Protein backbone atom coordinates (compact mmCIF):
# COMPACT_ATOMS: atom_id res chain seq x y z
CA UNK A 1 0.00 0.00 0.00
CA UNK A 2 2.91 2.30 0.68
CA UNK A 3 3.73 2.38 -3.00
CA UNK A 4 0.22 3.46 -3.88
CA UNK A 5 0.28 6.29 -1.38
CA UNK A 6 3.69 7.38 -2.61
CA UNK A 7 2.74 7.37 -6.27
CA UNK A 8 -0.32 9.49 -5.58
CA UNK A 9 2.01 12.23 -4.41
CA UNK A 10 3.93 12.21 -7.66
CA UNK A 11 3.10 14.75 -10.33
CA UNK A 12 1.24 13.54 -13.43
CA UNK A 13 4.09 14.67 -15.67
CA UNK A 14 6.66 12.73 -13.66
CA UNK A 15 4.55 9.56 -13.72
CA UNK A 16 3.95 9.93 -17.44
CA UNK A 17 7.61 10.39 -18.37
CA UNK A 18 8.73 7.69 -15.94
CA UNK A 19 6.31 5.21 -17.53
CA UNK A 20 7.80 5.86 -20.96
CA UNK A 21 11.33 5.50 -19.57
CA UNK A 22 10.47 2.21 -17.86
CA UNK A 23 8.88 0.84 -21.06
CA UNK A 24 12.10 1.57 -22.94
CA UNK A 25 14.61 0.28 -20.42
CA UNK A 26 12.73 -2.96 -19.79
CA UNK A 27 12.34 -3.76 -23.49
CA UNK A 28 15.95 -2.81 -24.06
CA UNK A 29 17.07 -5.33 -21.45
CA UNK A 30 14.94 -8.08 -22.97
CA UNK A 31 16.42 -7.37 -26.42
CA UNK A 32 19.95 -7.25 -25.05
CA UNK A 33 19.49 -10.79 -23.73
CA UNK A 34 19.94 -11.89 -27.36
CA UNK A 35 23.47 -10.50 -27.44
CA UNK A 36 25.67 -13.51 -28.27
CA UNK A 37 22.56 -15.76 -28.35
CA UNK A 38 20.82 -14.81 -31.61
CA UNK A 39 20.33 -17.37 -34.41
CA UNK A 40 23.20 -15.86 -36.40
CA UNK A 41 25.66 -12.99 -36.28
CA UNK A 42 23.68 -10.40 -38.26
CA UNK A 43 20.62 -10.90 -36.05
CA UNK A 44 22.78 -10.69 -32.97
CA UNK A 45 24.07 -7.31 -34.11
CA UNK A 46 20.62 -6.10 -35.15
CA UNK A 47 18.87 -6.99 -31.90
CA UNK A 48 21.71 -5.49 -29.85
CA UNK A 49 21.51 -2.28 -31.89
CA UNK A 50 17.77 -2.03 -31.39
CA UNK A 51 18.38 -2.58 -27.67
CA UNK A 52 20.84 0.32 -27.87
CA UNK A 53 18.21 2.58 -29.45
CA UNK A 54 15.88 1.77 -26.55
CA UNK A 55 18.60 2.38 -23.94
CA UNK A 56 19.13 5.79 -25.51
CA UNK A 57 15.41 6.46 -25.41
CA UNK A 58 15.25 5.34 -21.77
CA UNK A 59 18.15 7.62 -20.83
CA UNK A 60 16.48 10.68 -22.37
CA UNK A 61 13.19 9.95 -20.60
CA UNK A 62 14.89 9.14 -17.26
CA UNK A 63 16.97 12.32 -17.40
CA UNK A 64 13.82 14.31 -17.98
CA UNK A 65 11.87 12.41 -15.29
CA UNK A 66 14.66 13.14 -12.80
CA UNK A 67 14.55 16.82 -13.74
CA UNK A 68 10.75 16.95 -13.40
CA UNK A 69 10.88 15.17 -10.04
CA UNK A 70 13.44 17.69 -8.80
CA UNK A 71 14.70 15.61 -5.88
CA UNK A 72 18.27 15.33 -7.06
CA UNK A 73 17.95 11.75 -8.30
CA UNK A 74 19.88 10.80 -11.44
CA UNK A 75 18.89 8.72 -14.45
CA UNK A 76 20.91 5.86 -12.97
CA UNK A 77 19.11 6.12 -9.62
CA UNK A 78 15.80 5.76 -11.41
CA UNK A 79 16.88 2.82 -13.57
CA UNK A 80 18.96 0.87 -11.08
CA UNK A 81 17.74 1.71 -7.60
CA UNK A 82 13.97 1.39 -7.77
CA UNK A 83 12.20 -1.81 -6.85
CA UNK A 84 9.89 -3.91 -8.98
CA UNK A 85 6.75 -2.30 -7.55
CA UNK A 86 8.08 1.13 -8.44
CA UNK A 87 8.51 0.22 -12.12
CA UNK A 88 5.58 1.38 -14.20
CA UNK A 89 6.20 -0.21 -17.62
CA UNK A 90 3.36 -1.74 -19.64
CA UNK A 91 3.55 -5.48 -19.08
CA UNK A 92 4.16 -6.49 -22.71
CA UNK A 93 7.71 -5.10 -22.46
CA UNK A 94 8.75 -7.31 -19.54
CA UNK A 95 7.73 -10.74 -20.83
CA UNK A 96 10.74 -13.07 -21.20
CA UNK A 97 12.37 -13.00 -24.61
CA UNK A 98 11.09 -16.48 -25.48
CA UNK A 99 12.25 -17.92 -28.80
CA UNK A 100 13.29 -15.75 -31.74
CA UNK A 101 9.73 -15.88 -33.10
CA UNK A 102 8.30 -14.55 -29.84
CA UNK A 103 10.83 -11.73 -29.68
CA UNK A 104 10.10 -10.70 -33.26
CA UNK A 105 6.32 -10.88 -32.84
CA UNK A 106 6.47 -8.71 -29.72
CA UNK A 107 8.79 -6.30 -31.54
CA UNK A 108 6.44 -6.16 -34.51
CA UNK A 109 3.40 -5.45 -32.33
CA UNK A 110 5.32 -2.77 -30.41
CA UNK A 111 6.96 -1.21 -33.48
CA UNK A 112 3.50 -0.82 -35.00
CA UNK A 113 2.26 0.74 -31.75
CA UNK A 114 5.20 3.13 -31.38
CA UNK A 115 4.96 4.08 -35.03
CA UNK A 116 1.44 5.42 -34.37
CA UNK A 117 2.17 6.73 -30.89
CA UNK A 118 5.40 8.63 -31.51
CA UNK A 119 4.08 10.15 -34.74
CA UNK A 120 1.57 11.99 -32.54
CA UNK A 121 3.86 12.55 -29.57
CA UNK A 122 6.17 14.74 -31.68
CA UNK A 123 3.42 17.39 -31.44
CA UNK A 124 3.41 17.36 -27.63
CA UNK A 125 3.29 20.84 -26.12
CA UNK A 126 6.08 19.75 -23.80
CA UNK A 127 9.21 20.60 -25.79
CA UNK A 128 11.44 17.95 -24.25
CA UNK A 129 8.93 15.17 -24.82
CA UNK A 130 8.38 16.36 -28.39
CA UNK A 131 12.14 16.41 -29.05
CA UNK A 132 12.64 12.89 -27.66
CA UNK A 133 9.74 11.63 -29.76
CA UNK A 134 11.20 13.28 -32.88
CA UNK A 135 14.42 11.33 -32.40
CA UNK A 136 12.71 8.08 -31.44
CA UNK A 137 10.22 7.99 -34.33
CA UNK A 138 13.04 7.85 -36.88
CA UNK A 139 14.46 4.79 -35.15
CA UNK A 140 11.08 3.12 -34.72
CA UNK A 141 10.28 3.46 -38.44
CA UNK A 142 13.48 1.61 -39.19
CA UNK A 143 12.71 -1.07 -36.60
CA UNK A 144 9.30 -1.64 -38.19
CA UNK A 145 10.85 -1.88 -41.63
CA UNK A 146 12.91 -4.72 -40.22
CA UNK A 147 10.27 -6.56 -38.16
CA UNK A 148 7.69 -6.59 -41.00
CA UNK A 149 9.71 -8.81 -43.38
CA UNK A 150 10.68 -11.08 -40.48
CA UNK A 151 7.05 -11.69 -39.55
CA UNK A 152 6.20 -12.25 -43.22
CA UNK A 153 9.08 -14.66 -43.71
CA UNK A 154 8.43 -16.66 -40.55
CA UNK A 155 4.64 -16.74 -41.13
CA UNK A 156 5.05 -18.06 -44.65
CA UNK A 157 8.19 -20.11 -44.07
CA UNK A 158 8.03 -23.65 -42.73
CA UNK A 159 5.22 -25.21 -40.75
CA UNK A 160 7.47 -24.93 -37.72
CA UNK A 161 8.18 -21.21 -38.14
CA UNK A 162 4.51 -20.45 -38.80
CA UNK A 163 3.38 -22.40 -35.74
CA UNK A 164 5.79 -20.41 -33.58
CA UNK A 165 4.46 -17.09 -34.90
CA UNK A 166 0.91 -18.22 -34.24
CA UNK A 167 1.86 -19.40 -30.76
CA UNK A 168 3.62 -16.11 -29.96
CA UNK A 169 0.56 -14.14 -31.09
CA UNK A 170 -1.60 -16.32 -28.86
CA UNK A 171 0.68 -15.66 -25.88
CA UNK A 172 0.85 -11.93 -26.52
CA UNK A 173 -2.78 -11.25 -27.27
CA UNK A 174 -3.69 -10.86 -23.59
CA UNK A 175 -1.07 -8.16 -23.17
CA UNK A 176 -1.80 -5.87 -26.14
CA UNK A 177 -4.97 -4.36 -24.63
CA UNK A 178 -2.98 -2.60 -21.93
CA UNK A 179 -1.18 -0.53 -24.58
CA UNK A 180 -4.46 1.30 -25.18
CA UNK A 181 -5.53 1.67 -21.55
CA UNK A 182 -5.36 5.26 -20.36
CA UNK A 183 -4.53 6.11 -16.76
CA UNK A 184 -6.17 9.01 -14.96
CA UNK A 185 -3.02 11.12 -14.71
CA UNK A 186 -2.29 10.57 -18.36
CA UNK A 187 -5.76 11.73 -19.38
CA UNK A 188 -5.21 14.99 -17.52
CA UNK A 189 -2.04 15.51 -19.58
CA UNK A 190 -3.89 14.79 -22.82
CA UNK A 191 -6.18 17.70 -22.00
CA UNK A 192 -3.11 19.93 -21.67
CA UNK A 193 -1.74 18.75 -25.03
CA UNK A 194 1.24 17.03 -23.43
CA UNK A 195 0.31 13.33 -23.67
CA UNK A 196 -1.41 11.30 -26.38
CA UNK A 197 -4.74 9.51 -26.10
CA UNK A 198 -3.47 5.95 -26.55
CA UNK A 199 -7.01 4.56 -26.56
CA UNK A 200 -7.72 6.49 -29.74
CA UNK A 201 -4.84 4.75 -31.54
CA UNK A 202 -6.37 1.31 -31.20
CA UNK A 203 -8.58 1.19 -34.33
CA UNK A 204 -5.61 2.09 -36.56
CA UNK A 205 -3.38 -0.42 -34.80
CA UNK A 206 -5.97 -3.21 -35.04
CA UNK A 207 -6.51 -2.49 -38.73
CA UNK A 208 -2.81 -2.45 -39.52
CA UNK A 209 -1.95 -5.63 -37.58
CA UNK A 210 -4.96 -7.54 -38.92
CA UNK A 211 -4.24 -6.39 -42.45
CA UNK A 212 -0.59 -7.37 -42.32
CA UNK A 213 -1.13 -10.77 -40.71
CA UNK A 214 -4.18 -11.38 -42.87
CA UNK A 215 -2.00 -11.29 -45.99
CA UNK A 216 -0.25 -14.36 -44.60
CA UNK A 217 -3.57 -15.95 -43.68
CA UNK A 218 -3.22 -15.41 -39.95
CA UNK A 219 -6.16 -14.08 -37.98
CA UNK A 220 -5.76 -11.74 -35.05
CA UNK A 221 -8.73 -10.23 -33.24
CA UNK A 222 -9.16 -6.69 -31.96
CA UNK A 223 -6.98 -5.85 -28.95
CA UNK A 224 -8.88 -6.53 -25.75
CA UNK A 225 -8.00 -5.60 -22.22
CA UNK A 226 -7.21 -8.84 -20.37
CA UNK A 227 -4.28 -8.19 -18.08
CA UNK A 228 -3.40 -4.81 -16.62
CA UNK A 229 -1.33 -3.33 -13.83
CA UNK A 230 2.03 -2.27 -15.25
CA UNK A 231 1.49 1.47 -14.97
CA UNK A 232 0.49 0.96 -11.32
CA UNK A 233 3.48 -1.18 -10.41
CA UNK A 234 1.64 -4.51 -10.52
CA UNK A 235 3.77 -6.85 -12.63
CA UNK A 236 4.06 -10.39 -13.91
CA UNK A 237 6.40 -12.68 -11.98
CA UNK A 238 9.06 -12.06 -14.62
CA UNK A 239 10.02 -8.44 -13.93
CA UNK A 240 11.58 -9.04 -10.50
CA UNK A 241 13.91 -11.69 -11.91
CA UNK A 242 14.85 -9.42 -14.77
CA UNK A 243 15.61 -6.48 -12.47
CA UNK A 244 17.72 -8.62 -10.17
CA UNK A 245 20.01 -9.18 -13.12
CA UNK A 246 19.76 -5.68 -14.58
CA UNK A 247 20.35 -3.93 -11.25
CA UNK A 248 22.86 -6.35 -9.75
CA UNK A 249 25.97 -4.29 -10.38
CA UNK A 250 24.63 -1.00 -9.02
CA UNK A 251 23.08 -2.68 -6.00
CA UNK A 252 26.29 -4.51 -5.16
CA UNK A 253 28.70 -1.68 -5.98
CA UNK A 254 26.66 1.55 -5.63
CA UNK A 255 27.89 4.38 -7.85
CA UNK A 256 30.14 2.09 -9.87
CA UNK A 257 31.12 3.43 -13.30
CA UNK A 258 32.81 1.87 -16.31
Amino acid sequence: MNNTIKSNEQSPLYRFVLGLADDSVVLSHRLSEWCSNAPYLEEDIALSNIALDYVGRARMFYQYAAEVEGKGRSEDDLAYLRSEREFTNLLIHELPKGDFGFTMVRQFLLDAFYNLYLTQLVDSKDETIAAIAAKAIKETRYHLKRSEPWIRQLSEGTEESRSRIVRALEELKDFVGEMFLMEEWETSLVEQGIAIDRAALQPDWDRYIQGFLGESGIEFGDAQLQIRGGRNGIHTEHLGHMLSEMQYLQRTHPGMEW
Partner: protein
Amino acid sequence: MTMSDAAIYKGSHQVIPTVNPVYAQRRKFRVDGEHQVLWNLLDSVYDPELPGLTIWDLGVLQDVRKQDDTCIVVITPTYSGCPAVDTMKQDIISALNDAGYQQVKVEVALAPAWGTDMISPAGKQQLSSLHIAPPQEDDQPNCPVCGSSNTTVLSQFGSTACKALHQCRDCFEAFDYFKRI
Protein backbone atom coordinates in the same frame (compact mmCIF):
# COMPACT_ATOMS: atom_id res chain seq x y z
CA MET B 1 33.66 28.26 -47.24
CA THR B 2 34.99 25.93 -44.59
CA MET B 3 38.11 23.83 -44.91
CA SER B 4 36.14 20.64 -45.33
CA ASP B 5 33.81 22.07 -47.99
CA ALA B 6 36.81 23.23 -49.95
CA ALA B 7 38.03 19.67 -50.27
CA ILE B 8 35.22 18.70 -52.64
CA TYR B 9 36.25 21.25 -55.25
CA LYS B 10 39.79 19.94 -55.48
CA GLY B 11 39.53 18.06 -58.74
CA SER B 12 37.51 15.16 -57.43
CA HIS B 13 36.00 12.85 -60.04
CA GLN B 14 32.94 12.34 -57.93
CA VAL B 15 30.44 15.15 -58.42
CA ILE B 16 27.93 15.89 -55.72
CA PRO B 17 25.10 17.63 -57.55
CA THR B 18 23.22 19.68 -54.98
CA VAL B 19 23.47 20.72 -51.40
CA ASN B 20 20.32 19.77 -49.54
CA PRO B 21 18.46 22.58 -47.75
CA VAL B 22 19.06 21.15 -44.28
CA TYR B 23 22.82 21.27 -44.76
CA ALA B 24 22.63 24.65 -46.51
CA GLN B 25 20.89 26.06 -43.45
CA ARG B 26 23.50 24.58 -41.09
CA ARG B 27 26.27 26.03 -43.16
CA LYS B 28 24.73 29.48 -43.29
CA PHE B 29 24.31 29.36 -39.52
CA ARG B 30 27.99 28.54 -39.16
CA VAL B 31 29.22 31.12 -41.64
CA ASP B 32 27.11 33.83 -39.97
CA GLY B 33 28.33 32.75 -36.54
CA GLU B 34 30.21 35.09 -34.25
CA HIS B 35 32.98 32.70 -33.24
CA GLN B 36 34.67 31.61 -36.46
CA VAL B 37 37.89 30.77 -34.63
CA LEU B 38 36.09 28.26 -32.42
CA TRP B 39 34.12 26.71 -35.30
CA ASN B 40 37.37 26.22 -37.20
CA LEU B 41 39.16 24.76 -34.17
CA LEU B 42 36.40 22.19 -33.84
CA ASP B 43 37.15 20.97 -37.37
CA SER B 44 39.95 19.03 -35.68
CA VAL B 45 37.47 16.90 -33.73
CA TYR B 46 36.59 13.63 -35.46
CA ASP B 47 33.95 11.00 -34.91
CA PRO B 48 35.71 8.23 -32.93
CA GLU B 49 34.17 5.50 -35.07
CA LEU B 50 34.32 7.18 -38.49
CA PRO B 51 37.94 8.20 -38.92
CA GLY B 52 38.35 11.26 -41.12
CA LEU B 53 34.83 12.53 -40.57
CA THR B 54 34.69 15.65 -38.39
CA ILE B 55 31.81 16.31 -36.02
CA TRP B 56 30.89 19.20 -38.30
CA ASP B 57 30.78 17.01 -41.41
CA LEU B 58 28.72 14.39 -39.57
CA GLY B 59 26.16 17.03 -38.56
CA VAL B 60 26.64 16.49 -34.84
CA LEU B 61 28.09 19.96 -34.17
CA GLN B 62 25.19 22.42 -33.94
CA ASP B 63 26.28 25.63 -32.25
CA VAL B 64 29.22 27.40 -30.63
CA ARG B 65 28.58 30.22 -28.17
CA LYS B 66 30.50 32.16 -25.55
CA GLN B 67 29.23 33.15 -22.16
CA ASP B 68 31.79 35.36 -20.43
CA ASP B 69 34.94 33.23 -20.57
CA THR B 70 33.16 29.93 -21.13
CA CYS B 71 32.87 28.34 -24.57
CA ILE B 72 29.58 26.49 -24.96
CA VAL B 73 29.52 23.84 -27.66
CA VAL B 74 26.16 22.32 -28.59
CA ILE B 75 26.02 18.86 -30.16
CA THR B 76 23.16 16.55 -31.09
CA PRO B 77 23.75 12.79 -30.95
CA THR B 78 23.15 10.72 -34.09
CA TYR B 79 21.20 7.81 -32.61
CA SER B 80 19.60 7.93 -29.14
CA GLY B 81 21.96 5.35 -27.72
CA CYS B 82 25.07 6.37 -29.63
CA PRO B 83 27.98 5.47 -27.34
CA ALA B 84 30.37 7.82 -29.16
CA VAL B 85 28.86 10.93 -27.56
CA ASP B 86 30.99 10.78 -24.41
CA THR B 87 34.19 10.45 -26.43
CA MET B 88 33.16 13.37 -28.65
CA LYS B 89 32.53 15.51 -25.56
CA GLN B 90 36.00 14.77 -24.24
CA ASP B 91 37.60 15.43 -27.62
CA ILE B 92 35.81 18.78 -27.94
CA ILE B 93 37.00 19.86 -24.51
CA SER B 94 40.58 18.75 -25.27
CA ALA B 95 40.65 20.50 -28.65
CA LEU B 96 39.58 23.83 -27.18
CA ASN B 97 41.75 23.43 -24.06
CA ASP B 98 44.78 22.80 -26.26
CA ALA B 99 44.07 26.06 -28.09
CA GLY B 100 44.05 27.96 -24.80
CA TYR B 101 40.34 27.99 -24.01
CA GLN B 102 40.20 26.68 -20.45
CA GLN B 103 36.48 26.95 -19.75
CA VAL B 104 34.54 24.65 -22.07
CA LYS B 105 31.05 23.30 -21.62
CA VAL B 106 29.46 20.77 -24.00
CA GLU B 107 25.67 20.69 -24.15
CA VAL B 108 23.83 17.76 -25.69
CA ALA B 109 20.68 19.07 -27.38
CA LEU B 110 17.75 16.83 -28.26
CA ALA B 111 16.35 19.19 -30.87
CA PRO B 112 16.71 19.47 -33.77
CA ALA B 113 16.71 15.69 -34.13
CA TRP B 114 19.79 14.59 -36.06
CA GLY B 115 19.22 13.34 -39.59
CA THR B 116 21.50 12.25 -42.40
CA ASP B 117 20.57 15.42 -44.34
CA MET B 118 22.78 17.27 -41.85
CA ILE B 119 25.88 15.51 -43.19
CA SER B 120 28.03 17.86 -45.30
CA PRO B 121 28.88 17.10 -48.95
CA ALA B 122 32.51 16.71 -47.89
CA GLY B 123 31.37 14.29 -45.21
CA LYS B 124 29.49 12.19 -47.75
CA GLN B 125 32.52 12.07 -49.93
CA GLN B 126 34.69 11.15 -46.98
CA LEU B 127 32.32 8.26 -46.24
CA SER B 128 32.70 7.02 -49.83
CA SER B 129 36.46 7.16 -49.60
CA LEU B 130 36.27 5.05 -46.43
CA HIS B 131 34.26 2.55 -48.53
CA ILE B 132 31.12 3.38 -46.57
CA ALA B 133 28.23 4.11 -48.95
CA PRO B 134 26.68 7.50 -48.07
CA PRO B 135 22.91 7.77 -47.37
CA GLN B 136 20.63 7.57 -50.44
CA GLU B 137 17.06 8.80 -50.95
CA ASP B 138 15.86 5.31 -51.89
CA ASP B 139 18.14 3.39 -49.50
CA GLN B 140 19.67 1.62 -52.53
CA PRO B 141 23.39 2.40 -52.30
CA ASN B 142 25.92 1.83 -55.05
CA CYS B 143 28.97 -0.25 -54.21
CA PRO B 144 31.58 2.18 -52.84
CA VAL B 145 34.35 -0.01 -54.23
CA CYS B 146 33.38 -0.67 -57.87
CA GLY B 147 30.40 1.68 -58.25
CA SER B 148 27.93 -1.02 -59.26
CA SER B 149 24.26 -0.49 -58.46
CA ASN B 150 23.77 -4.25 -58.24
CA THR B 151 23.88 -4.50 -54.45
CA THR B 152 21.91 -6.33 -51.79
CA VAL B 153 21.28 -6.05 -48.02
CA LEU B 154 23.11 -8.53 -45.82
CA SER B 155 21.98 -7.09 -42.51
CA GLN B 156 19.94 -4.04 -41.53
CA PHE B 157 22.49 -3.21 -38.87
CA GLY B 158 26.24 -3.05 -39.37
CA SER B 159 29.26 -2.20 -37.25
CA THR B 160 27.45 0.71 -35.56
CA ALA B 161 23.80 1.73 -35.07
CA CYS B 162 24.03 4.24 -37.94
CA LYS B 163 25.08 1.68 -40.56
CA ALA B 164 23.66 -1.35 -42.38
CA LEU B 165 25.66 -4.11 -44.03
CA HIS B 166 25.31 -4.52 -47.81
CA GLN B 167 27.08 -6.57 -50.43
CA CYS B 168 27.95 -5.91 -54.06
CA ARG B 169 26.75 -8.64 -56.41
CA ASP B 170 29.34 -7.69 -59.00
CA CYS B 171 32.61 -7.39 -57.08
CA PHE B 172 31.30 -9.34 -54.05
CA GLU B 173 32.67 -6.80 -51.61
CA ALA B 174 30.67 -6.48 -48.39
CA PHE B 175 30.35 -2.84 -47.37
CA ASP B 176 28.78 -0.60 -44.74
CA TYR B 177 25.91 1.64 -45.80
CA PHE B 178 25.24 4.80 -43.79
CA LYS B 179 21.47 4.53 -43.28
CA ARG B 180 19.29 7.45 -44.26
CA ILE B 181 17.18 8.75 -41.38
